[in-house]
């Protein structure tokens, strides 16, 4: 069973605020899913190579030549707040 403190710890890592009424259901639902997932601990996986991708991809490199990217004004156009030539965010300090 995942405890309340653990839920809050993971939420902090995930940069996710949870309302008070979200915490208990989250603990319960994560626990149920993790119990199910725990079945893979029964398997003998010694000497098995982990796979990140299943289809072999090699040599995906291209020549390193400069080319135009998204114009600044286009990149800034969808931002919730901008200041001059950049994205505007609140101060990291409280």
């Amino acid at each position: 069973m995942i405890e309340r403190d653990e839920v809050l710890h993971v939420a902090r890592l995930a940069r996710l605020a949870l309302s008070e009424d979200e915490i208990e259901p989250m603990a319960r639902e994560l626990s149920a899913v993790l119990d199910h997932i725990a079945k893979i601990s029964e398997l003998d996986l010694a000497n098995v190579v982990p796979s990140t991708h299943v289809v072999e991809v090699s040599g995906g490199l291209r020549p390193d030549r400069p080319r135009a990217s998204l114009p600044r004004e286009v990149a800034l156009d969808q931002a919730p707040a901008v200041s001059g030539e950049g994205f505007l965010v609140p101060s990291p300090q409280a």
Partner: protein
Amino acid sequence: MNATDPLALSAGEAVEAISAGLLSSRELFEAYRARAEADRAAADGGLNCFTWVAEQPPGEDQPPPLHGVPLAIKDLFCTEGVPSQSGSRMLEGYLPPYTATVVSALAGAGAPLLGKTNQDEFAMGSSTENSAFGAARNPWDRERVPGGSSGGSAAAVAAGLAPWALGTDTGGSIRQPAALCGIVGLKPTYGAVSRYGMIAFASSLDQAGPMTRNVGDAALMLRHMVGRDRCDATSLAFPEEIALPTGERLDGVRLGVPEELTGEGIEGGVLESFHAALARAQELGAEVQDVHLPHAPHALSAYYVLAPAECSSNLARFDGVRYGLRAAGADQLLDMYTRTRHDGFGAEVKRRIMLGTYALSSGYYEAYYARAQRVRTKIADDFRTAFEQVHFILAPTSPSVAFKLGEKTGDPLAMYLNDYCTVPMSLAGIPAISIPCGLSEGLPVGLQIAGPAFSENRMLDAAHAMEQALDFDAAAARV
């Protein structure tokens, strides 16, 4: 061919009718546009398939080879200047500055954008109930789900609100809604289609694919989707052109039926329909034999570690800085991040982010993520071994027919079990197609055919032969 009712034509037939001068692409577009717009305007009073519909037919002449047959596209594909929010509040009002490669490729081949379709938020779900636009509905029974996450695309095609549609599949999100709505859905080999411009869920699994009325249309669309894209380093050149399928017999074809995906947990009516389809395959000359995928029962567990892990990383980009939602009133940066993510994400997305973050966190990484990656290797090995004995593997697409709206929303694990028959192929990166194979309780059942990597042409041919023999009647879903 009846050119007086353009809506009755498959996409392939519509292409022929336009090129023969029997139908104008503008007339065809307008006919679908009006239906799609009516459904969008009706929202919950209709099927709620569309999140956005084009206001008018494209102005310029539509090029061959597809001659302007309109295409519905899942919301998560970026379309320049057209709302693309992946079913999430987080991207409300977002207008992408570029278009996904696969959407451009299809538009360039003459399949212009008809509308964007409803989906589970960030493609996380199996019912299209987790959407900022509200739940989509199944045209066979409006009180039931269309499946998900590409449920809007599936319902639109089944109901005749679009001639064909583009979906994406991470663990079954094309195949399962195709099955539940009685249409054809194909998940290509991982890497066959560029992911550039798809709002990412789990990058090592996500693939775009066709959702169509028949197997021929799926081949026709896929032909214009595959290929290496320099904007997606995991995309690969498809080794051959996708051909239009013509298969009518299955002589000499060996079909494997894995007991792991055809036993416990599969609804009786679904199994009945599946076994009837196997009998038809034998009548067509196929040899049906048992195969084993010993690790398939663990696929769901591995998937629900790997996909959430990748999602927790991919969705880190939604922080209220560059696009989309920003929570109002936060005067400190960290507070702005956490509140934006609280407000913007729905319950299921939060659950997956939490699950993925947990699985990747210090102390748990080895037990969950690293183990799941090893299970993935074993699953791919299982399929490799099976394909030494058989040409294709057959299984039901979904363990059940379409379920009632709200039936599984309170139980995440019950919802995840919908993916039981589709995630093994996703983890192995192999192609699989779902075709309708019959009805159970008046609702469609999907037959899944999976083949080795890059076997799409042979798989489509086998699916075509089965489709001809099964002769599924989809008329009841048309609205």
